[in-house]
C-alpha cells in the first residue's frame, strides 16, 4: 500500500512539474544561419553584424567565391523589388527544414510566410537555395562550428530560465503546440519574432536574437536584460495578425496618434502607422506579462512606453486588464479586439499628448540668464528650478551650443535640494574673462514618477574679467 502511495505521489509531482515547466533551449539553427549568410553576402546591412569577428570573417572567406552566385543575385533582386529584408527573411527561414535537402516544413498553413513573399518567389528561392547549399557545402561550415555554437547555446540558457511560456497561450487564448523556440542568430543585427501557423491552427513561435557582446575569446555573452526582449519577440507572434485583422478600423485614428510622435518614432526606427500599431499591441501585452510576474515593473514600463511615444499605452493596458478579468466572456484576445478598436476610436491623441506633457517635468527657472556677461568667476553655483518634485538621484549636464572647449569644470558638490526636490545646483569652477557653454538635457532629469523633462535647457555666459 505504502509503495502505491509513493508511486502515486511521484506521478502527481511529475505531472505537476511537467505541466508547469516548458523547457526551452536556445539553439544556433542551421536554417537561420544559412539565410542570414545568404543575405549577408548580398550586402544586407541588417545581416552584417560583425560582433563575432572571427566567425564572420571565416564565413565571408568561405562564401567569397559565391558572391555572384545565382541565388545571391536573385536575393538581391527580390530585396529590391519586394522588400525581402529584416523579418521577412527570418520568417522564411523558420518555415524550412533541412534533411537530405531543404524543403518547406509539411505542417504549416500555406500563405503564412511573411506577406512580402509570394508563392512563386518562395519556390524559386527554395530551388536556388538548395543548389547553393550543395555548391557551397554550407553544412560543412555549419558543423565545423558546432563547438562554438554549443558554447553560445550554453551561455544563453540562464536568460531563459525564468520565462513563463505557459502564460502566452493562456493570455491570448490560443492553441499552442507547446513549442517556443529561441534561436541565437550570430549574423544578424536585430531581434525578430516570427511564427509558424500550423494547419490545425496551433502556433509555433520563435524569438530570434542577435549577438552584441562577447568575451575576450569572442564567445557571445548574454545578459539577463534580454528576457524582456524575448518576451517582446514571442508576443509579436500572438498580436501582429490581430492588428492585421483590424488594420482598416485602427489605421485612421492610428495616423492621428502617429503624427504628433512621428519624430520620436523615427528615432526608434518605426516609420509607419502600422508598425506603431504592432508595437503598442505588443508592448501593452508585455506589460500584462510583467503584471503577472513582476508587478513592480508595471509602472516603470508604462512610463517608459509613454515616453517612447505610445500615447494610449496606459488606456490599452487598462483595457487589457478588463479582458484579463473577463475571460469567461472573452476566450481569446481576438474576440476582444473590437473593444480595443472602440477604445482607440474614443481617444483624443491631442488630449493624451497634453496629459503626457503635463506629467513630464519642466524647467521653470535658471539662476543666471542665458547670454549673461560679467558672471562672477572662481567657484560658482548655478541653480535650475523645476516645476515639480524630481528624482534627486539623477541629473546630467552636457556640452552647450559652443561645444567642448567651453564646458566648465564641475565640482562634486553639484546636487539637489533634498527638501524641495525642485532645485538642482551645479557647482563649477570658472576662470575670469572666459566664455562658457553648457546644457541641461531634459532626458537626464526625471520626475518622481519617472517621466523625463521635455527639451534641453541651454546656457551660454561670459565671466567677468579679473
Amino acid at each position, binding site marked *: 500500500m505504502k509503495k502505491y502511495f509513493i508511486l502515486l505521489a511521484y506521478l502527481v509531482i511529475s505531472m505537476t512539474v511537467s505541466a508547469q515547466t516548458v523547457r526551452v533551449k536556445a539553439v544556433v539553427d542551421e536554417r537561420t544561419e544559412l539565410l542570414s549568410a545568404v543575405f549577408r553576402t548580398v*550586402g*544586407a*546591412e*541588417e545581416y*552584417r553584424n*560583425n*560582433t563575432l*569577428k572571427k566567425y564572420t*570573417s571565416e564565413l*565571408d572567406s568561405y562564401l567569397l567565391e559565391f558572391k555572384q552566385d545565382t541565388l545571391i543575385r536573385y536575393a*538581391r533582386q527580390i*530585396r*529590391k523589388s519586394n*522588400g525581402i*529584408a*529584416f*523579418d*521577412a527573411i527570418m520568417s522564411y527561414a523558420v518555415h524550412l527544414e533541412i534533411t537530405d535537402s531543404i524543403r518547406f516544413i509539411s505542417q504549416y498553413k500555406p500563405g503564412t510566410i511573411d506577406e512580402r513573399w509570394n508563392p512563386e518567389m518562395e519556390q524559386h528561392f527554395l530551388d536556388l537555395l538548395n543548389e547553393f547549399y550543395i555548391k557551397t557545402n554550407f553544412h560543412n561550415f555549419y558543423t565545423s562550428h558546432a563547438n562554438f555554437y554549443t558554447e553560445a547555446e550554453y551561455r544563453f540558457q540562464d536568460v531563459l530560465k525564468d520565462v513563463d511560456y505557459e502564460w502566452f497561450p493562456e493570455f491570448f487564448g490560443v492553441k499552442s503546440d507547446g513549442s517556443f523556440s529561441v534561436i541565437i542568430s550570430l549574423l544578424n*543585427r*536585430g531581434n525578430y519574432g516570427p511564427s509558424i501557423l500550423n494547419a490545425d491552427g496551433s502556433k509555433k513561435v520563435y524569438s530570434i536574437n542577435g549577438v*552584441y557582446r562577447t568575451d575576450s575569446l569572442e564567445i557571445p555573452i548574454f545578459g539577463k536584460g534580454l528576457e524582456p526582449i524575448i518576451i517582446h519577440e514571442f508576443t509579436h507572434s500572438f498580436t501582429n495578425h490581430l492588428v492585421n485583422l483590424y488594420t482598416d478600423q485602427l489605421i485612421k485614428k492610428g495616423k492621428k496618434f502617429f503624427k504628433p510622435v512621428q519624430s520620436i518614432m*523615427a*528615432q*526608434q*526606427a*518605426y*516609420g*509607419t502607422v502600422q*508598425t506603431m500599431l504592432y*508595437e503598442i499591441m505588443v508592448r501593452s501585452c508585455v506589460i500584462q506579462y510583467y503584471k503577472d510576474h513582476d508587478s513592480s515593473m508595471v509602472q516603470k514600463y508604462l512610463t517608459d512606453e509613454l515616453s517612447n511615444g505610445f500615447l494610449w499605452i496606459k488606456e490599452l493596458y487598462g483595457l487589457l486588464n478588463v479582458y484579463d478579468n473577463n475571460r469567461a466572456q472573452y476566450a481569446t484576445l481576438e474576440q476582444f479586439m473590437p473593444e480595443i478598436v472602440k477604445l482607440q476610436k474614443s481617444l483624443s491623441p491631442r488630449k493624451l499628448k497634453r496629459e503626457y506633457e503635463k506629467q513630464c517635468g519642466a524647467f521653470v527657472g535658471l539662476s543666471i540668464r542665458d547670454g549673461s556677461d560679467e558672471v562672477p568667476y572662481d567657484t560658482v553655483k548655478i541653480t535650475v528650478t523645476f516645476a515639480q518634485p524630481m528624482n534627486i*538621484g*539623477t*541629473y*546630467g*549636464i*552636457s*556640452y*552647450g*551650443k*559652443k*561645444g*567642448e*572647449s567651453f*564646458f566648465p*569644470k*564641475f565640482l562634486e558638490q553639484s*546636487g539637489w535640494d533634498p527638501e524641495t526636490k525642485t532645485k538642482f545646483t551645479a557647482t563649477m569652477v570658472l576662470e575670469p574673462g572666459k566664455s562658457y557653454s553648457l*546644457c541641461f*538635457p531634459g*532626458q*537626464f532629469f526625471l520626475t518622481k514618477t519617472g517621466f523625463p523633462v521635455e527639451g*534641453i535647457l*541651454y546656457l551660454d555666459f561670459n565671466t567677468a574679467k579679473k
Partner: protein
Amino acid sequence: MKKYFFWVFLTFGLLFSTFGQTLSPEEQKLYDLIMQYRREMGLPPIPLSPSLTFVAKTHAKDLAENRPDQGSCNAHSWSDKGNWTPMCYSDDHKQKEKMWSKPSELTNYKGKGFEIVTMVYGRPTPVYMNATMAIKSWKGSSSHNAVIINSGMWKSSKWQAIGIGIYKGYACVWFGEEAE
C-alpha cells in the same frame, strides 16, 4: 519598422562596405540617425569605416576612463595611458594636425581624421550618452552641425568614411575624406 528600415537601407545600405567593424546597438543607432539626418538635408550617405570606428571607440573609452579632457585640454585630447601619442588639444586648435593624424597613427587609414565629440556629466555614475542625445547635442551646436551636414567651412569636404564610438558618457564620431 522593418519595412521602413528596408527602404532606408535600400537607398543607402547596399553602397556600404562594413567588413570588420563592430558597432554596439547604440552606436549603430547613432550611425543610422546621422545618415537619416544627412538624407533629410539631401546629402549622400557616408560609408562606415572600420578604421575610423576603431579610432572613435578607442577615443571614447580613453575619454571616459582616463579623462584627458581636464584643465586647458578639451575633449579632443588623448591621455598618456594607451598605445598612442598623448595630446592636449587646446581651444586655439594648435594641435589640430595631431588630431588629423590619429587615424593613421592607430590604423591603416591614411587620410586625415576630423572628430566631433559630446559628453554628459552627471548621476548616477556612469551616466550613459545615447544616440538620440548625441545627435541632438551636435544639431544644437552650429559648428558641430556644420561638420555633419557639410556646411560652412566643411562645405567642400566630401566625407567618404565615418567612424562611431560611444562609451559611458562620451560619444565620438570621426569623419574622413578618403574612402576605406
